[in-house]
């Protein structure tokens, strides 16, 4: 399949006088980062497969401001938020789904105080609801019985108390889910949060992503599953650093499902 994905934008919907069921908030990583773009595409295929009526903002989307806020630049954050909220409210958006826990957290928790209240879901939550409603069917396929460990993104897990949605999806794939010694509310950060993604770490004896990868390797997984484009990058780098990239894949849960469905 070499044809381009058909991804409708809000502007097109507006022109046609329609409202989509859900807005897919792609995020900066999902839009620009080569690895993360694959996650974006996999998720879009799943949306299409489940016949979800969705749209993206496209060129009207801008950074949520998460890295600015967490770096301490509240000005920049609020400017970004104000611009985004203006666009979102202009389109009368009700429901948003995103594959990035940072976008998810910011829009869900921090935008309401600035005038932007929406129902916001992480893509694993949304996929789970599609499964529950019977709109999407998932079977183990090629992942059946494979040993897989899930790395909790801080901004989905601890920050928002969602530990089960991604795990439920993995169980649907009939994988052998093994937990790292640090998981769920005790999970270790991948090292990218709080705008660390965009700077060199402070001096120490190890990078955080290496430490986290070591914890993952302890349980001997075939795949490290992730639910965040930044975690994905960090863990991929960690696996490379340990020269394990031939044996261990790092995959987003959405990619795994799309892959199991051979999309």
């Amino acid at each position, binding site marked *: 399949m070499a044809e381009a994905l058909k991804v409708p934008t809000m502007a097109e919907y507006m022109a046609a006088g329609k409202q989509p069921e859900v807005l897919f908030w792609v995020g900066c990583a999902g839009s620009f980062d080569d690895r993360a*773009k694959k996650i974006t595409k996999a998720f*879009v295929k799943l949306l299409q497969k489940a016949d979800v009526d969705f749209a993206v903002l496209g060129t009207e989307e801008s950074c949520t401001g998460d890295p600015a806020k967490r770096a*301490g630049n509240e*000005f*920049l954050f609020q400017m970004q938020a104000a611009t985004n909220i203006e666009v979102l409210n202009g389109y009368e958006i009700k429901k948003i789904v995103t594959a990035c826990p940072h976008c998810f957290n910011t829009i869900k928790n*921090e935008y309401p105080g600035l005038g932007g209240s929406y129902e916001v879901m992480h893509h694993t939550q949304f996929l789970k609801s599609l499964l529950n409603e019977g709109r999407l069917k998932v079977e183990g396929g090629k992942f059946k019985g494979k040993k897989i460990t899930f790395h909790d993104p801080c901004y989905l897990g601890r920050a928002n108390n969602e530990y089960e949605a991604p795990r439920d999806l993995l169980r649907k794939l009939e994988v052998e889910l093994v937990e790292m010694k640090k998981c769920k509310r*005790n999970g270790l950060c991948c090292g990218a949060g709080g705008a660390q993604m965009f700077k*060199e770490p402070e001096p120490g004896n190890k990078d955080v992503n290496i430490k986290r990868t070591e914890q993952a390797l302890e349980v001997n997984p075939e795949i490290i599953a992730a639910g965040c484009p930044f975690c994905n990058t960090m863990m991929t780098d960690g696996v490379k650093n340990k020269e394990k990239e031939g044996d261990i894949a790092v995959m987003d849960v959405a990619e795994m499902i799309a892959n199991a469905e051979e999309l």
Partner: protein
Amino acid sequence: MHIIAQILFVIALLAGVGFFARNIKRLIRNIKLGREIDRNDRAGERFAKMARIAFGQSKMVRKPVAGFLHVVVYLGFIIINIEVLEIVIDGVFGTHRIFSFMGGFYNVLIAAFEILAFLVLVGVIIFWIRRNLMNIYRFLSRELKGWPKNDANYILYFEMVLMLLFLTMNAADHQLQLNGAEHYALGHSMQAAFPISNFILPIFDGMTNASLVIVERTAWWLHILGILFFLNYLYYSKHLHILLAFPNVYYSKLQPKGEFDNLEAVKKEVALMMDPDADPFAAPAEDAEEEPEKFGASDIFDLNQVQLLNSYTCTECGRCTAECPANQTGKKLSPRKIMMDTRDRVEEVGAIINQKGKFEDDGKQLLDDYILREELWACTTCNACVEACPVGIDPLSIILDMRRYLVMEQSAAPQELAIAMTNIENNGAPWPYNQMDRLNWAEENK
């Protein structure tokens, strides 16, 4: 003779309680140095959280060994207070075991106290061994050298001595009762009431009643004076958490951990900047007299009162630091140190106020003089420290407020971050890509 003892007792009691009250006043004054913050909403939820986490110790037991021992010492502490009440009444009125009129039930109570005292003793000894002889990561950090380490040990020694005094007092009392000594004889037998101190009875073999009375009175006095001293030691110690854990949990953040507050001062400015009708040359509003609001925190005055309360509540247990990814990978950041630094600075400011009646600039501040920029920039804002803290402390909020100061007041972000922020401002993404290319992925082949 008795009356003199009673008078001395009342004086000791008033002095102890009075000094304590003075310290509490100072504590409240110091916390009020922080900015006001409204955390009086959702009282029901707050009470429930306090009952669960502070009273019910639900987070303590996540570490089974330390958690279990702590629950024992905690229960011991609470229950033995009934005994302290009796001691106080006896002390003031010159009575002996005033509650013993309860008969059999009293025996049960005293027996329970003895067993608890013994368990506390065992617990405290194990705590001491863990802290001093075992290489437990969170007890080895650099911020625990000196006073914090000694403080922790003093508390343990103190508790050991208090428990031993309690048991000695009981044993001597019991022997005197058996001897039928005047003043010590009770209306009923307390035979069954001393399951632990029974074991130390033999050391009194052959002692006269007069010496026994001296032993009993000495233990009794030292015990209660010790408690009064301990009460006043609290303020200077991490042990203050036994009082502050409750309000601290009550006022802790109820929103999702990932939700950071939207600064009100910034809201105003942004609204002005976004408003096409705002006249940039308009005369400043009537509140122009006010000092322009400072963004973020460089000293304790910029932190809010809950953050300062947090710093006084910190137990220096280091659970936060043990979970911190930055700390685990050898970076300078330790969330515990952030809390200890904050308290040290509040205390320093408080001392100036005690001395001079008001705060006079001492040329120091929390930033740089206590907390280093390198520590602040190492944080991934992962909330592991917040999750780990058994008493609801939020070290991350202080880190974030200090970053805000660095970035918004000083433009002192690390250079790469400054670049990422410029990108966000110009391109709507932290990377130098054009916003117009945002949908390119949809055009690419899969």
